[in-house]
């Protein structure tokens, strides 16, 4: 990349101030003219989108937990509660959704077991060892725009490319839908649109960036949970923010994707999370697959030599 490029731009998604309004999802769809991806009640708290996909470039996750949030007093400990529903609900969701993923998610929620009829024995609803805590986490997920982007690396057509802003985009006029980028992405972001054949993902609103405008999601975000800016500035701001939250008693605040030494060389879109990444559906320690490609190429070459040698040996041996 030449020197006159603009600085690398990025997203800092601070989930601690996310209110789960989903403005980002809608603003993204409006700007990028993304089709809706089906109506189904997923039962994942207020998340009826499911996950990122070809038709979802911003996805707000909702997580209900029987855990405290910093010094927040949710009063649950003083209420006459029974057992938490979070695990059972997640179980029901999982059962209903089965193995569906990506763009399939929008279609159906699957078979749900009908409940027992009334009149049966009533379990005691309130127990002394009932749930004591409650927090509701929300987080807007997006393409990470990795420093070392596997999707970009493996794309055989040059459809995926890194822009002058350091972001990763799909050129829709080039993509031939080979699908290689889909399993290459360590975050499960990019996906193929079935009826279209091509793959789609967040472009960080590349067209808007070229005109000096901020991406649609960041612009809409009511609480500035999604912050757009020069990546270096955002990283600095994020580090400060974590300190600030730790001060405030939110000791579980941590950054995800902000470390330039991580497996993808640092993400262009990074996050402040309040729990382990996997709780939000993120991989805990993603690695760009092409980091290992040179070694794999060596093995491939060695294997090829082996193949040739085997055949040669077979003929040489058979001649005797």
């Amino acid at each position, binding site marked *: 990349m030449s020197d006159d490029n603009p600085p690398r731009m990025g997203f800092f998604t601070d989930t601690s101030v996310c209110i789960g309004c989903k403005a980002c999802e809608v603003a993204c769809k409006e700007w990028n003219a993304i089709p809706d991806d089906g109506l189904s009640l997923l039962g994942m708290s207020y998340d009826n989108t499911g996950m990122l996909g070809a038709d979802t470039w911003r996805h707000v996750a909702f997580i209900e937990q029987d855990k405290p949030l910093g010094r927040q007093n949710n009063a649950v400990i003083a209420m006459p509660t029974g057992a938490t529903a979070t695990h059972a609900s997640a179980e029901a969701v999982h059962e209903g959704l089965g193995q569906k993923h990506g763009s399939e998610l929008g279609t159906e929620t699957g078979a749900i077991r009908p409940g027992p009829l009334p009149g049966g024995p009533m379990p005691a609803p309130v127990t002394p060892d009932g749930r004591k805590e409650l927090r509701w986490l929300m987080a807007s997920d997006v393409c990470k725009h990795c420093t070392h982007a596997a999707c970009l690396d493996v794309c055989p057509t040059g459809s995926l490319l890194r822009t002058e802003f350091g972001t990763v985009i799909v050129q829709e006029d080039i993509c*031939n839908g080979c699908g290689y980028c889909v399993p290459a992405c360590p975050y499960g972001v990019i996906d193929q649109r079935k009826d279209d054949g091509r793959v789609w993902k967040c472009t960080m609103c590349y067209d808007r960036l070229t005109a000096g405008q901020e991406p649609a999601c960041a612009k809409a975000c009511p609480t500035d949970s999604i912050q757009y800016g020069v990546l270096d500035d955002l990283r600095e701001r994020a580090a400060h923010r974590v300190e600030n939250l730790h001060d405030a*008693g939110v000791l579980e605040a941590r950054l995800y994707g902000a470390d330039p030494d991580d497996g993808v060389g640092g993400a262009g879109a990074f996050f402040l999370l309040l729990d*382990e990444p*996997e709780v939000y559906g993120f991989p805990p*320690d993603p690695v760009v697959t092409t980091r*290992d490609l040179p070694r794999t190429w060596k093995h491939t070459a060695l294997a090829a030599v082996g193949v040739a040698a085997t055949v040669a040996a077979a003929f040489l041996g058979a001649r005797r």
Partner: protein
Amino acid sequence: MSASEQHGSEVRRDGLHGTAPGREARIGARGGRKAGRGGEMVPPAEFRSYYGRSVLKAPVWESRDIAGYFFLGGVAGGSALLAAGADLTGRIGLRRSTRVAAVAATGLSLAALIHDLGRPGRFVHMLRVLKPSSPMSVGTWILSGFAPLVAVAALDEARERLPGPVRPMIAALGRPSGLAATVLAPAVTTYTGALIADTAVPVWHDARRELPYLFGASALAASGGLAAATSAPGEAAPARVVGIAGALVEQACDRAVHKRLGMVAEPLSQGRAGRYLTAARWSTRAGAALLALSALRRSRALDIAGGTALVAGSLFARLGYFHAGATSATEPRYTVVPQRERADHAAKTGAGG
């Protein structure tokens, strides 16, 4: 603690003081409870995930197209090598069958690849760039070189039926083309291993060390088996050797994968993938045994049976690995558990990611 947090903001006669942007709001800070309990994480007994949803996207590839493409590529590469050997050693029958096999498999594998594209009409976009970082790009260029060579070599087998003017040209190019193809042929058999290893799919990526060998060996087993089954027992000796050697190495690689991958290897022995791989194992073993027997008895029937079993074994193996990969991508635990261990370990040792 920021100044505004300490003192609160003020509205003075000259305006606002002590303001801070809303994004600095300290969530839950003033609830009056003991801090940090959300941070005291007891390591959960089970791995955690977002409603059991997959972290990764499973491949969008059709197993018939892409597993078929891997398999056919293997057959093509192996057959081209066998054809060259047969050509050089004067095994005319073997040469004919392997040259035909090479061109047919190449054509079909390309067809499968193109068929699987979301936009088949844009196949040619593959030739816009050459990216060493993309095994599919490298593979496409290899195949693009390989396909005309095996095509010419195959035409050489049908030289009598060609129109007059091109006949001498093909006759002259047949052998050089066939031999030139051997430069690319080994790579044709192994690059697909690199292709799937170069993804985030846990089974594939973790097996990246073995997969090129496994795929190369599988290619040898399939092409050797196919050649043995389609040529005269008298000429089939090298094919049998190739087939048996491929089968043995494939089995060894498969075993190594299972052993080295630990829990991530689970999908290889479960469900559809497990069934395919069990079938592959037995089929390959049977094929190798039958061909070995035929090497002693020179039986056409044994060659056909053993060769077919090896071909089937190779196809099952590709399907098995394909489906196991898809399962490992869909089930979040294969992504989360190893990464969580790695992250925890790194955190403990203080090493960076």
